[in-house]
């Protein structure tokens, strides 16, 4: 009933706007690997490769052109995107600020490991761009893939795939621009369908419930309250508070329950916009009350993913 009321509010009153997802264009990992724009770091003895966006943007003019073209077309459609180059620059500036700013007594600004993990270029919807040029004698053909992904639910939202007509004279930037312009409408139609679904059925998010190991209360997700285990109580709360009780559980143990495909309302009963953090905040307050009296910590990964750790702050 509550969720139905929230949906009605969402449908009828856009006086309050839903939290807008951020969208950013990234060169895909395949594209970066093929052109050598990768960096390797050591993860506890294992060499891990990841895209070096900074170098790719500094050295590849075609990439800059393609991203600028997509940004331009999306702005024209009334949905300006975040610019990867600017986000990277801002992260560097913030890092320098963190290192340099100290209080009069010599204290530096606080930064948790979670803050460090979150301090990387990311967006709520990631547009992965790939293209490849095939040469057959004097003829050149460009294959182009643009894919929108939701990093929180790991779902594909939209994609545009195309191959240009073979050309004897067109340069890569021209073929690339043509491909972007020709494919962007179909891509946006899928993106629009995703947004329509979001307004109709609520935002799809992921919620991870964890427990601090050896917490002072000695609580875990199998701790019983009356006839029910804590994980059952949380599942019941989810069923009551999600849109039409829609969610999936992809794993459950005494330390962890993963809720995926969780449909949360876009607005609460007062008409205020709801994001995953606000939604999980409501669960946190529920667990804090009698008879549970459980403290918990909310860790936000983004608009669509939050981790709630029970047992401590």
């Amino acid at each position, binding site marked *: 009933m509550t969720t139905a009321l929230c949906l009605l509010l969402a449908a009828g009153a*856009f006086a309050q*706007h*839903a*939290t*807008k*997802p951020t969208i950013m264009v990234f060169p895909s990992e395949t594209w970066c690997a093929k052109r050598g724009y990768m960096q390797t770091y050591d993860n506890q003895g294992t060499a891990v490769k990841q895209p070096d966006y900074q170098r790719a943007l500094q050295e590849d003019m075609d990439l800059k052109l393609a991203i600028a073209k997509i940004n331009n077309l*999306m702005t*024209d*459609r*009334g*949905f300006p995107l975040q610019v990867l180059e600017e986000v990277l620059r801002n992260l560097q500036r913030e890092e320098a600020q963190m290192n340099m700013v100290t209080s009069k007594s010599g204290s530096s600004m606080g930064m948790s490991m979670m803050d460090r993990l979150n301090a990387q270029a990311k967006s709520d919807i990631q547009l992965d761009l790939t293209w490849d040029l095939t040469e057959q004698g004097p003829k050149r053909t460009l294959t182009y893939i643009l894919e929108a992904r939701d990093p929180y639910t790991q779902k594909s939202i939209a994609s545009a795939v*195309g*191959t*240009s*007509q*073979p050309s004897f004279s067109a340069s890569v930037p021209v073929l690339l621009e*043509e491909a972007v*312009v*020709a*494919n962007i*409408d*179909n891509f*946006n*139609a899928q*993106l*629009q*369908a995703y*947004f*329509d679904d979001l*307004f109709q059925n609520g935002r799809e998010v992921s919620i991870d419930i964890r427990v601090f190991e050896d917490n002072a209360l000695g609580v875990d997700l199998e701790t019983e309250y009356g006839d029910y285990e804590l994980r059952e109580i949380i599942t019941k709360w989810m069923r009551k508070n999600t849109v039409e009780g829609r969610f999936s559980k992809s794993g459950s143990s005494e330390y962890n329950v993963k809720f995926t495909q969780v449909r949360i309302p876009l607005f609460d009963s007062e008409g205020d916009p709801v994001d995953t953090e606000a939604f999980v905040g409501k669960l946190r307050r529920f667990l804090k009350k009698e008879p549970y009296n459980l403290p918990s910590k909310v860790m936000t990964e983004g608009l669509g993913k939050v981790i709630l750790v029970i047992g401590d702050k």
Partner: protein
Amino acid sequence: MKKILTFALAALLFVPAFAGSKKKAEKDTQAFRYELECAGNGVQGTYLIRVWSYSRKAAVAAEQCKKNAVHGVIFKGYTGENGCVAQRPLVSKPGAEMEHEEYFKSFFSDKGEYYKYVSLTETSQEIVKVGKEYKVGVVVSVKKDELRKALEAAGIIRGLGSGF
């Protein structure tokens, strides 16, 4: 005098026949009886389309092509091949044409608002006689970005950023 009378009589016979063909062409448009195919990559903000229309009068079919092109971009979309990209219709909601009947009636009236968004790109036409009818094909350019903005302003479709 005799010549004038003959001309007037011919005109009287021709006008209803032309009007009848026109009415039939309008019905064909509403029944999606036309064909659209991609004719190349238009300049930014436009679609370049080859549109085929049917009528007993080749002139009526040719004129109806413009209306059909806009109607098709809004409600039907079109196919593409050989590197030419197929496009989805601007309005994806089923029944939207009926839901906004008054708006589209005025929009698609003769020389109505639709006319602002379409232009012929070449004067040549392809005419094929199919039974008692003519199938006329022309290449037109549809200003799809402006058309989309007009439909958004009229509340027929939602903008990508609306609601946020």
